[in-house]
């Protein structure tokens, strides 16, 4: 991409932007189609779920445009404030949130429920980017401990809900950003050593804080075939759905695993299994490739960002979405325990949809402003 090109397309969208948007739209379409396929055959009353998701998609795309439009440097200035609001919302959730299956994750807001653990991710990325971008952070205290203390309350509040998946996602964003910023080797070595030593204690604490069904899910991951009707049921049914799709898939509405409800939660956490069953290996590889293209474009934006804030912002967004994609597909295909992480841009859920599209809007924001100061 030449300088010329960028200048010419300053106000409009260039080829890269269109490609970026095209990939996003393709993934969104696959998601809505899968949700349509699962929920349409089930008797539902009221507004169909796939149309709800489409509505959230429109809202998300508006958020995308807003996030792409406002200079990210301005947003970075409010990052601490936004993160603070996010933490307050997480506290509200714990105090008076709406419970579902033993976890308190939602705040009712008129006809909707919002999930603060999703919404706080963007402020987290902005905060980390702003922190490392403000002045050069020297020494491992400034490079690791201080940002760690920023992340910790959010991580703990989400874990307390409990929402293991989201809290791990929270941690993942932090780790990838820290890794990108880089450590002085001594400090890094110390951290690794400390982490290894603290691991058994941390594991005990984490394990104890999990709910029974979460512990069951992780245990059943060890041998899902042992109890098909019980703990490993979701994982096994999901693998059957994906595997039985074979090369070409069973076609829209043709997936027996999902259409006959052997696979629960087909429109949320297990939407990938629905897609893979009905579109086969070809479809799932195309989808996986779309995500790869999206990540590569995101990392390309990070590489070409004009400053540290922009680069880390881009890396954080890619880390957030990539974590969701990798863990979700690993979980549905039986490579990871069923921890309850939605597939970004595909699983049903308004909060996640708006947050993910906002984050992608920030990516485009970084890309479009890389030459603005020259």
């Amino acid at each position: 991409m030449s300088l010329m090109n960028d200048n010419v397309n300053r106000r409009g969208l260039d080829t890269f932007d269109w490609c970026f948007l095209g990939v996003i739209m393709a993934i969104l379409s696959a998601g809505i189609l899968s949700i349509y396929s699962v929920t349409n055959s089930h008797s539902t009353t009221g507004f169909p779920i796939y149309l709800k998701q489409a509505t959230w998609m429109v809202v998300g795309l508006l958020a995308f445009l807003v996030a792409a439009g406002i200079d990210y440097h301005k947003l970075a200035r409010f990052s601490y404030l936004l993160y603070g609001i996010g933490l307050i919302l997480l506290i509200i959730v714990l105090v008076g949130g709406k419970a579902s299956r033993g976890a308190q994750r939602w705040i009712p807001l008129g006809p909707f429920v919002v999930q603060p653990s999703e919404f706080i991710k963007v402020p987290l990325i902005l905060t980390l980017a702003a922190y490392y971008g403000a002045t050069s952070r020297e020494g491992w205290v400034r490079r690791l401990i201080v940002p760690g203390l920023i992340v910790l309350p959010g991580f703990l509040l989400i874990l307390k809900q409990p929402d293991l998946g989201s809290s791990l996602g929270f941690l993942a964003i932090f780790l990838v950003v820290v890794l990108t910023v880089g450590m002085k080797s001594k400090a890094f070595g110390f951290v690794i050593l400390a982490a290894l030593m603290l691991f058994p204690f941390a594991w005990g604490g984490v394990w104890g804080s999990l709910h029974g069904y979460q512990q069951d899910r992780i245990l059943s991951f060890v041998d899902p075939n042992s109890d098909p009707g019980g703990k490993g049921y979701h994982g096994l049914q999901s693998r059957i759905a994906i595997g039985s799709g074979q090369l070409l898939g069973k076609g829209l509405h043709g997936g027996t695993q999902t259409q006959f409800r052997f696979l629960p939660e087909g429109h949320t956490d297990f939407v990938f299994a629905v897609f893979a069953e009905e579109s086969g290996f070809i479809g799932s590889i195309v989808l996986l490739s779309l995500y790869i293209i999206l990540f590569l474009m995101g990392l390309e934006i990070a590489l070409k960002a004009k400053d540290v804030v922009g680069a880390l912002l881009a890396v954080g967004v890619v880390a957030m979405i990539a974590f969701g994609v990798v863990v979700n597909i690993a979980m549905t295909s039986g490579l990871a325990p069923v921890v309850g992480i939605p597939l970004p841009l595909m699983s049903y859920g308004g909060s996640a949809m708006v947050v993910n599209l906002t984050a992608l809007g920030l990516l485009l924001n970084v890309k479009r402003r890389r030459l603005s100061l020259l």
Partner: protein
Amino acid sequence: MLDTSRQANELADIQNRLIFVKVGFLMLLVLLGLRLWQLQIRDGLFYQDLARDNRTRSIVLEPARGLLYDRNGELLANNIPSFQLYISLEDVQDREGLIARLPQYVDIDGQDISDKLSKKSRRGRVKIKAGITLKEAALIESHRIELPGVVIQPEYQRHYPLKTYAAHVLGYVGEISESQLKDPEFSNLQQGRIIGQYGVERTFDKYLLGETGEEVIEVDALGYPKRSLSVQRPLAGDDLYLTLDIRLQRLAEDLLGEEAGAIVALDPWNGDVLALASKPGFNPNDVSGGISAKDWQQFLQDTRHPLTNRAIQGQYPPGSVFKIIMAAALLETQTLSAQESIPCHGTFPFGKRVFRDWKAGGHGQVDLTKAIAESCDVYFYKAGNQLGIEPIATYARQFGLGGKTGIALPSERSGLVPSSEWKRKVKREPWYPGETISISIGQGFLTVTPIQMAKVASIVATNGRVVQPRLFKASRLRRTGNLKEEPEPPIQQLAMSPKTFAHIKEGLAAVVTKGTAQRAKSDMVSIAGKTGTAQVVALKPDGDKDKNKELQKEFRDHAWFVAFAPVEHPKIAVVVLVEHMGHGGSASAPLAKTLIEAYMSFQTTPQEPSL
């Protein structure tokens, strides 16, 4: 600017490290791609099978059981639609709760349910109750949510429109038992199959069964059927036409009434069983409809033994009806001629004992005809004493005693024809000549079944044709729709002189005209017969025959009457046995007469066009 340059350095560092982030992500995504290849391509067929097993259920389609008709096409057994209650084991989480709740809606004992469930594994369907009412079915359907795994399936149920009539012949059906499942005879049948358990239902099960079909249906995760994938229709069993004439059968059973006993009527020429009655009886509808364990126990413990088919399983001393065989032995061995007469003074001294005639003063001068007609005991004491046990046993066996007739019904008994060899083997004692004297008038160790005596009557009626009593007349084959007549059983001719039979027949005719069975005399048809009174020796506190009337009923003698008619050209052979009714002449002979007259009237009145 220093800050700017440090920023630039920082940025360059970050840009350098991005490659690791990129490679890391790519490796993870490639790993996922490989995993998808593994699941969808390498193991795709395996998971396809799992998905199919998940969603398909195979349902056995029960064939309609073949129908049963009598010889004139009168319906004896059919199938009616009914609701069957099943429990689908995979769908039951809380067994105890279900066992507690189900009896609220269905008339069933909780213990019965747990018994039925305890035997079986955790998979598949178990039939809990057959023939639940429409009301019960509706109650269950409306409480479906509380009763997960409970399935109501409309199926055919065996029905016997004549209720108790011919129950012992028809038998009943029931679910294949655990032990039957292990039996190679039933090796091709699955659990839950309804098979014949008694009577012709059992003996001709292979004709009646038909072939099961199979339907493969697609179900969702809750077990609700979505659509049918394939159907292999069941093939109904063949319909059977029995030799029974149900009009005669009904009459025979009505004649016995509340008394315990048996009546057998045969066509003497081909062995067709026209009637085979046994009382007390039962209603096969009660048993076939999945009887409860408690009722079944009660049924088995009934002291009147309603399940016993007395016509083929009841073993009684023949009493004086055995004199028919004695007469044949006498004449054939030329021990006595028919004309020779013997004086009878009412007693027969033998060693230290005195055998008495049933008639205190005796019968005077007695020849064979008179001896049969008046059932003179002394005549046959003497004859038996001269013959000895071996010839008696030999002729008894020639007439088919001591062996099964081979009628196509389960659990036929063979009775007992004693001989000196038998006694040595079984009793470990020698044969005493005095025992021969008892045998001569049909007492002692000798026992026979009513069907055997019917065979004896047939042999005499036809001058020595030995036929096997048969029940299976014809079948309508389901595959072709054709009516297939069963070949008549082979006939064997006894090597005895026609004169012998002529003399015996003369005697038997005299029994009715001027002898012990004058109550069987008919204006309509000539009847020949022989009365018998079988002593219930073992039970009687005292051997005195004359005190029968004062005795408690269970110690009274059994009344026999063996007959055929018309004498000149016999069309029917009949045996009547009524337990504890005393003399055959008074108790049994009138029943035989009524039956014979009815049968003769069927012959003259035009038959309804049916078969």
